[in-house]
């Protein structure tokens, strides 16, 4: 055990001290200088100070935005009720398991035949480490997390017209691209072509770094040798006894990599949104929705389809029908309304709001997105190919194959995400198919990367988000111009109504956006309530 001598003041204690003495802005500066601050807009559990004096809030939608609002507003002393279209909580926070059935718009019904314990998350499926609000709710609501593997060096990059159609390991493309680019840069450095921009001393260091970064040999060349093999992989791995000696493998020429376009995937793994470490809830993404519902489920009226939202100076009246008995229109009233209904639906409802907000609601399109889960008789990607979790990328219309991040190295069945389309033409083309056609296409395309598909495939489910009855689309597809024109109008409190959800955030399509939007909306709403 480390021994501590003398009084040690911990950083957190110091910060608390600074906060007490100097106020929160001083504390913020202190946090920044101590390297402690989070980049997130989330400032820790919401504290809504002040008495709402019995005010009531009607929340429309029991997704993460709606349930966050319900949880926090009830805690702050509001009378809360929630109307939800589905017969379950969570909204797009959704997991499909064996035995579930799902009917998409058009009446196409799928009965999921996955083995018990296997699942697919058709909506959100990964949580970045910097989504502090969502992670905090997971901790507070006891949602157990496990790693979501975004980058697996042994998964594939695939281009239909390159490398004779053979998928290439990410590690090999990465090492070969990096190695040969390093070799080129080392060459021009040695030719003196950087003399005007880099000092001689720095050039020496640059050459050293290129050798290390690119796995170059003594002569600053990238070659088939045991040095490059440490990164790109071996023709024969190091072993034991009399078969111990490893063999290097042959790099792929730079020209082939350049023309294949697979280099474009390499940097994708470094994007802030998908940098390691990422998480997923153990057992399925809907564990989050279910955990929220354990807290606020008693406030939710399910199967409630909203048909009209009215407001006047004294309150809000929402008309709705029970989807199991839609003939009788019912009404719910409250002093205030937090509306999380997705905009493709909200834009069609009679709704008393100002023209600028109405215009914003009507102007935001929702992205097309399709996810397809495929069950196989065995986990051939692990057994045959040593791919444990992670994602392969391809220029085929399926775009991605994602390997399950649970149940590693087990015998028996497993499920792949056989296609993940987001925006672009293919997402619409897959939406226009029947579910069975989508699954069949995913199997046919996927077999070009994993030939085992043909023999091992058993059953699949496909969710096309424009055909999902409770959203009519995946998520808000903002453009810069659209955001400049409409975003603030969308987020303003309009009389007694405020909108929340990923569409009212700068993190569209992320669960964190839904929660941060909700926290921001109810904070502003509460300020107004306490003032009046």
């Amino acid at each position, binding site marked *: 055990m480390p021994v501590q001598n003398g009084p040690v003041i911990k950083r957190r204690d110091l910060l608390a001290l600074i906060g007490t003495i100097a106020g929160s802005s001083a504390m913020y500066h202190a946090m920044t200088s101590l390297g402690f601050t989070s980049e997130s807009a989330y400032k820790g559990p919401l504290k809504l100070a002040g008495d709402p004096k019995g005010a009531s809030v009607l929340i429309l939608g029991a997704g993460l935005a709606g349930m966050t609002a319900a949880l926090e507003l009830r805690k702050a002393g509001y009378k809360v009720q929630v109307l939800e*279209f589905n017969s379950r909580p969570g909204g797009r926070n959704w997991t499909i398991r064996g035995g579930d059935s799902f009917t998409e*718009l*058009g*009446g*196409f*019904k*799928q*009965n999921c*035949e996955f083995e018990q314990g296997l699942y697919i998350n058709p909506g959100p499926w990964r949580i970045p480490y910097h989504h502090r609000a969502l992670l905090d709710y997971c901790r507070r609501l006891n949602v157990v997390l496990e790693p979501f593997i975004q980058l697996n060096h042994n998964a594939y990059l695939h281009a239909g017209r390159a490398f004779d159609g053979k998928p290439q390991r990410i590690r090999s493309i990465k090492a070969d691209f990096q190695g040969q680019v390093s070799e080129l840069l080392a060459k021009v450095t040695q030719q003196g072509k950087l003399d005007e921009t880099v000092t001689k001393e720095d050039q020496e260091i640059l050459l050293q770094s290129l050798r290390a970064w690119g796995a170059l040999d003594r002569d600053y060349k990238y070659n088939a040798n045991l040095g490059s093999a440490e990164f790109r992989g071996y023709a024969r791995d190091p072993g034991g006894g009399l078969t111990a000696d490893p063999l290097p493998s042959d790099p792929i020429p730079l020209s082939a990599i350049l023309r294949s376009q697979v280099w474009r995937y390499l940097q994708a793994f470094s994007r802030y949104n998908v940098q390691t470490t990422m998480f997923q809830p153990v057992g399925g993404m809907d564990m989050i929705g279910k955990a929220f519902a354990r807290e606020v489920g008693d406030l939710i009226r399910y199967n409630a*389809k*909203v048909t009209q939202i009215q407001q006047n100076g004294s309150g809000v009246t929402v008309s709705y029908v029970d989807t199991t008995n839609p003939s009788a229109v019912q009404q719910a009233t409250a002093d205030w309304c937090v509306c999380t209904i*997705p*905009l*493709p*639906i909200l*834009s*069609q*409802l009679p709704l008393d709001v100002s023209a600028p907000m109405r215009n914003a609601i*009507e*102007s935001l*399109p*929702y*992205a*097309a997105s399709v996810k397809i889960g495929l069950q196989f008789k065995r986990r051939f990607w692990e057994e045959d190919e040593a791919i444990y979790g992670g994602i392969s990328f391809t*220029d085929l*219309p399926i775009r991605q194959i994602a390997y399950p991040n649970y149940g590693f190295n087990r015998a028996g069945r497993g499920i792949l995400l056989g296609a993940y389309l987001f*925006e*672009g*033409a*293919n997402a*619409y*083309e897959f*939406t*226009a*198919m*029947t*579910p*069975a*056609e989508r*699954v*069949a*296409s995913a*199997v*046919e*395309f996927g077999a070009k990367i994993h030939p085992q598909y*043909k023999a091992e*495939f*058993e*059953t*699949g489910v496909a969710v*096309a988000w*424009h*055909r*999902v*009855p*409770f*959203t*009519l*689309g995946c998520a808000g*597809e903002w453009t810069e111009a659209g955001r400049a024109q409409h975003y603030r109008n969308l987020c303003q409190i309009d009389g007694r109504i405020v909108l929340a959800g990923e569409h009212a955030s700068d993190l569209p399509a992320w669960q964190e956006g839904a929660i941060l939007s909700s926290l921001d909306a109810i904070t502003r709403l509460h300020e107004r309530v306490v003032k009046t």
Partner: protein
Amino acid sequence: MMTRASISAVAALTLLSATAATGQDNASRRTFSSGYRFVEMTGEELFANVCQGCHMPDATGATGAGTYPSLAGNKTLEAGSYPIFLIVNGRRGMPAFGDMMNDGQVAAVVNYVRTHFGNDFQDAVTAKDVQDARH
């Protein structure tokens, strides 16, 4: 034009085949675009590969928490400029396809919808009409 009954039959067949759809050669018979933009050129193919995703194969739309309007026998299609505007700009749940289809593609699919599914508007729109609507 398909009737409601035949649509249900298709849906039922689809269900039956959902678990058996292994080696079928579906993908090779369909058109898939390679980039962000659609490669389909005819109105018929654009409808089948794009529009029917929401408006359904028989163009009668669908209803959940919200509604995709029926394009079948739809009088609002009488002015060709209206569907052109919607396809290019989007509105109320309808995505904007202005960046994903060129003028000729938008005109082709508008003309297809305006002369099928019980619609009979013979005044064809042109690529020039679409180009003008973009400004």
